[in-house]
């Protein structure tokens, strides 16, 4: 594996990025790596933009990363992925949930929500490795919108095994599932398991 692998998670308050980054950092720990996670609480919970950072490696120092240092951008929302594109390193991997949450500045302020083509065009300058995942749709099919975050984690786990840009970063699906199961109420374990598997299938 690379010395350190950096994830940047971004989305909108309430989308489940907190659980996702908690899972991610603990997967790193469970795999015997040094792992750190950082996020900001407070104002950003009121429907604002949120980001969190997760880093795994043999030796991890800084809790956050800067511009051009993310190996993986895991975006829960399509406007937020553009807002945070500067974090992705050249040839990094972007995993983008196919979901738009329209902010008030668009509804009542007359600003324009970016089209999918704009997103693709912006990423073309950084990396060919862009994957859209229908996290929202898959979660809806599973009967619970809240598991979209676990669908995305499933997709991420599979991509870590396959993307040449991330070579050597894979951890077994069982490691992931164990960490997820420790973090969800017993009656939702089966649902989350399915969400994770569907996420893996979505990037096959």
């Amino acid at each position, binding site marked *: 594996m690379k010395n350190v692998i950096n994830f940047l998670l971004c989305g909108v308050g309430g989308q489940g990025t907190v659980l996702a980054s908690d899972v991610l950092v603990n997967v790193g720990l469970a795999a015997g790596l040094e792992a750190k996670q950082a996020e900001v609480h407070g104002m950003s919970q009121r429907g604002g933009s949120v980001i969190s950072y997760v880093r795994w490696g043999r030796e991890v120092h800084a809790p956050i990363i800067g*511009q051009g240092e993310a190996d993986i951008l895991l975006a829960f929302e399509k406007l937020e992925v553009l807002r945070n594109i500067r974090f992705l390193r050249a040839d990094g991997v972007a995993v983008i949930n196919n979901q738009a949450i329209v902010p008030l500045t668009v509804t009542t302020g007359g600003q324009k929500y970016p089209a999918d083509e704009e997103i693709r065009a912006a990423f073309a300058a950084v990396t060919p490795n862009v994957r859209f995942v229908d996290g929202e749709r898959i979660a809806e099919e599973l009967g619970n919108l809240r598991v979209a975050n676990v669908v995305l984690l499933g997709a991420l786990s599979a991509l870590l095994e396959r993307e040449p840009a991330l070579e050597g970063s894979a951890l077994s699906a069982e490691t992931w599932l164990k960490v997820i199961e420790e973090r969800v109420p017993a009656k939702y374990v089966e649902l989350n398991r399915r969400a994770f598997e569907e996420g893996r299938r979505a990037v096959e």
Partner: protein
Amino acid sequence: MALKKMLSGNEAVARGMWEAGVQVASAYPGTPSTEILENFALYPGIYAEWATNEKVAVDVAVGAAYAGKRALAAMKHVGLNVAADSLMYASMTGIEAGLVIVSADDPAMHSSQNEQDNRTYAKFARVPCLEPSDSQEAKDFTIAAFELSERFDTPVLLRLTTRICHSMSAVELGERLELPAQTKPFPRNPAKYVMVPSNAIKRHPVIEERIRLIAEYANESPLNRIEWRERTLGIITSGVSYQYAREVFPNASVLKLGMSWPLPEKLIRTFAAGVERLIILEELDPFIEEGVKLMGIACEGKSIFPLVGEFDPYVVRAAAVRAGLLPASVLEASPAPEVGPLPARPPVLCPGCPHRPTFYVLNKLKVPVNGDIGCYTLGLIPPLSAIHTCGCMGAGIAVAHGAAQAGSPEKHVAVIGDSTFFHTGVPALINVAYNRAPVVTVILDNRITGMTGHQQNPGTGQTLLGKDAPVIELEPLVRACGIQHVRTLSALDVDEIEKTLKEYVKLDEPSVLIVQEPCALLPEARRRWVPLEVLAEKCNGCTLCFRIGCPAILKSEELDEKTQRPKALIDASLCTGCEVCAQICPRDAIPFRPDSLFVEKAR
């Protein structure tokens, strides 16, 4: 092997408090410090509380430390401004058992009104300042702070920053230190504990000598260490900046200051003499840098690294490239493409927030509104746009009073939340009543401390430890402050709020409107959530309901035939059924809920 667990810095401080045998802790919530007490409260056999404000919290901790129990007070950086008076006397008196004050600073102001660097308070108050650089140290330094406090008879400032408080890393857990259970007799030692001038004048040299002794000790303390690597570059650093030093300059020698005040002069001289180029890497103020320069040692700090905002590895790397410390090639992997201006996504009042109607009405009345700090500060965001000043907690009422006394021709309004009112609003309101300005104060009582994540307060009937408490009722309290015009209304009743405010702005005397309704995210509110719907056939796209700024109201794809404007559409997954939009829709296009809160209007 000891058990290792992923902990945030705040969780680690709480763990450290428990392991250090802390028995009393008091705090007022404030990002990024809040989770320290929330987590400490979960340990068995301890006492923890939400105080009404930070000054009270420090005084409570001081009392416990005088009484011989290890005690801690926690707050965000600006909380220490409120508590500064108490820090100063606690430094003068010293303590009977360990006393630690946690200041959680917020470089980059993720959720604050300023980014002051509270290490200056340590210097100002002649107390030591410890700065952990990850969760393990957050725990270890908490324990060390208590040892230091008792060894030198001094309060200790434990200074954290957002990236320490809210980042997680692995921590080795230890056992609790069992301190003697019996309480020492409360000290009868006026020369030490009664700070009248004749006693205080004798204490001042004592604390100056104390800080000198701690500075001596700092040269040998395990909290400070030199890591020798290559000698071409030497970095003095503390707190989270240590991590950036290691990340960006892996081969440089580092002097890591776990205690950033007082500075270890001998250690610094040894380090400076051993390296060719000496730089200081610290966020915010040139605090260490100025100390080192005062020693007559040449170094560079803020001439290279930013004074404002927080660091990240890129920021440090880019600054180092500009200063010729690193080759430009280290920035190559950062394409960072330009993307056009993107729609902002500021935090907004939640769907169903009980603060919304008040701001909708204030916006209509076009009065100057002096705000305060809490969720309700978001009344500033368009389209509500109804806050015109906001500085710090408790300021709004007195700022309105000052503006009124200055002869401002408009009637001034102050808005303040329930927790903020208990924090510092009460003295300001008494001042309005006493000195008589026709200020209209609106207390937004959502029955919780919302902004910081729903903490109990004196109005909620519950304590931090989950015990029942008497509910401090606002209306009698306001009357007792000397206000005669007081009314309590439902915070969701748009018409009544408008009627009352129109009446109050005409008065020549102070008045208070209390609007009450639980925060929409509280369990009792959630139980009542029922989404409403827009009847497309009745909506003509008049856009009136967009003016309340509810995130659940969207523009539909469907245009009204006549006006060619988009109709309104309610996102059922977000709507709580607060009925604010239903009340203001002039065409009855949004039907009230079956169990309407506004039975009359619903008819």
